[in-house]
């Protein structure tokens, strides 16, 4: 899935003028999304989902994001922290479990990998007011 296809999916949820404004090419570009990229990365998905929640659905941010610190790479991308935390804590995107040599594992957000569509429209609908 590409960022543009993902935007189209989100458009199916509706949102009218608010959506058009929040998801214009200019607005997405300003948010750091390369709309011509062939593949959607997980951080692209997180940014767009968060944008949808805030600017289209009017869902305010969760105030306490400390729970997202279980993602060991949460702070690797300093400008993405809140996007990742909000979509993770809302259950919109699942973490990636990364196995360690000792048999244990850690949770990562893995921002740069391609999104494996760990979200669904139903999940987004589920958090709508």
């Amino acid at each position, binding site marked *: 899935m590409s960022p543009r296809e993902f935007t189209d999916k989100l458009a199916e949820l509706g949102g009218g003028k608010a959506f058009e404004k929040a998801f214009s090419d200019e607005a997405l570009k*300003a*948010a750091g999304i390369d709309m011509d990229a062939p593949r959607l990365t997980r951080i692209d998905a997180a940014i767009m989902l968060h944008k949808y929640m805030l600017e289209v659905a009017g869902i*305010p941010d969760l105030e306490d994001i*400390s729970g997202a*610190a279980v993602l060991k790479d949460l702070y690797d991308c300093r400008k993405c922290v809140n996007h990742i935390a909000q979509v993770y804590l809302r259950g919109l995107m699942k973490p990636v479990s990364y196995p360690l040599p000792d048999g244990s594992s850690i949770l990562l957000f893995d921002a740069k990998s391609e999104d494996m569509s760990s979200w669904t429209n139903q999940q987004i609908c589920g958090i709508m007011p």
Partner: protein
Amino acid sequence: MGIEVSTGRPAVIRDDKYRFDSFKNGKVFEGKKQGRLPAMGWNSWNAFGSGNTAALTRAMADKFVELGLDKLGYEYIVLDDGCYRQERVDGELANGEVKFPEGFRTLADYIHGKGLKFGMYNDIGTNLCAGAAVGTCGHELTDARSYISWGVDFIKVDNCYYLWDNATFSNAENAQYTYAPNIKSIEVEGNGLAIKLSAKCGELRGAGAEIKDDYVTNIGTFDGTGPQASPVGDMSAELVFKIEAPADGEYGLQIRYAAGKEAGAGSWLQIAAGPEGDTKIFYDDMVPAGDGPTEFISSKPFNISLKKGKNIIRLMNHRRQENTLCSYAALLEAFNEVDKDHGILLSICEWGKTQPQNWGYKVGDSWRILNDITFQVGGDGNPGRGEWASDYTPGVAVQYNKAVIMDEFAGLDKGWNDPDMLMIGMNGLDMTQCGTHFAMWCMMNSPLMLGLDLRRVNKGDEIYNIIANEDLIALNQDALGIQAKRVYSTLAKEAPDKEYIRDNERADILAKPLADGSVAVSFINLSDHEWTQKLDVSIDTILKFIGDRMKDKDSFAAAASYKIRDLVSKDEKVLDAKEISVSGIPAFGNVTYRISPVKA
């Protein structure tokens, strides 16, 4: 000839002034202004994130003046990330068409027209943190021309997408530039000498490196972005071998190494050799890659010169600090080239990653000490959110805990530690916390960059009364220019001014010498409950810690009494004793006094 920075490879360093060995010489680079007090102003980031616009900025400038902040010392209006077009236009920076349609010169003129100063933002990498591909790397001169033509007075320069470090958004494998390879042994030959030394025969100097099995790893500068490590002391390591040379001359040095591309095991090696205290650099580049950080191979012989008698061979990689310094220096030098009399204030924002407290003074006016104080920035209609403490860098106390022991790095001749912008007025912090936040930043000579939507402030309201407290601002802007020192902490074991304490279940006492011979003393309760025990500090203790930096230590010591002014309540009293005490500080609260000697 200045430093040349490009996207092709790390800078070639031809002048030792950019090297680690010059960090402690106290010399600043041409164009770096000394004698400046901490910057005061407003920055768009905490208030609006990358959603700032020209209209919002104009509104902030209007409100800035309406509130009289300019009369209190605040002067800069700074556009943070999100103001440029996403790509360069004909190789030059350009204003975002939707958010800043009028262009930056027009906006600067508007701000200057109000008697204020105009600041902007960029990055030493290829892209800005919010993504725009307009970083200064390789464009320093072009960008300096733009900024000067726009009338910029202040530039905050970030560190995302940096090519030579594993910075935010950068390739993690860039760690290859910031650490030396793992080293197992060396061989030195020449002039009748033939010696092989295992890494275990070497001496680990500095901090961070360690012997693992039979090799040394972690030769480099450790990352200061997070709050884990103390900022005081050595930040990097070297593997040093002592060699007795039979004669002056050339020697061959062969190194058995394993190169990698990860933190702790990199591929960039610096070799210095010569008598202790007078070593010269003989190699400063990548080494050929092998099969990974545990597969050891032998290098080609490196030529080094030794003097007859005792020498040392230093194997190291200080490039994490040197590269970053070079990148900031390239921008400063570009400004110098465009206008040698420019007075642009350079705010270094590499988040403490490369320990800028060691080198930032050479090029910059302040340097961030950690990653961001909040990741929950606001927007138009959303105040954003700050917090008192966290396990990472967000939080007033987190930033304070590091900055409070960094006074040795700050000063009028250097610049200022920057624990990030103020969060006063954001959600998540009550007014007691905001008041203590402000008092801390004033005591620590931190830049005072407001980070809220000023339209939410009115003269006389709670937020205004905090940010407009002239008595506290006077501490921050005191002409003596000395950051407060922590003279006592309930959790300090031996040295309250040096110990890195992250447990907030404590109270601290700070003391700061002032130009008129008085001393500011702040009692700070970092905990989430009232501090019921009495906290006291003697005049002797204050003198012991800051006496050498006071204007008139003897008069202060000999005073028969002291006038004590509470800088928040404005109450005044006379102290006839040699001990100052406070009790019952509320949770997250502070009591800050100005203590002036009364002549006998």
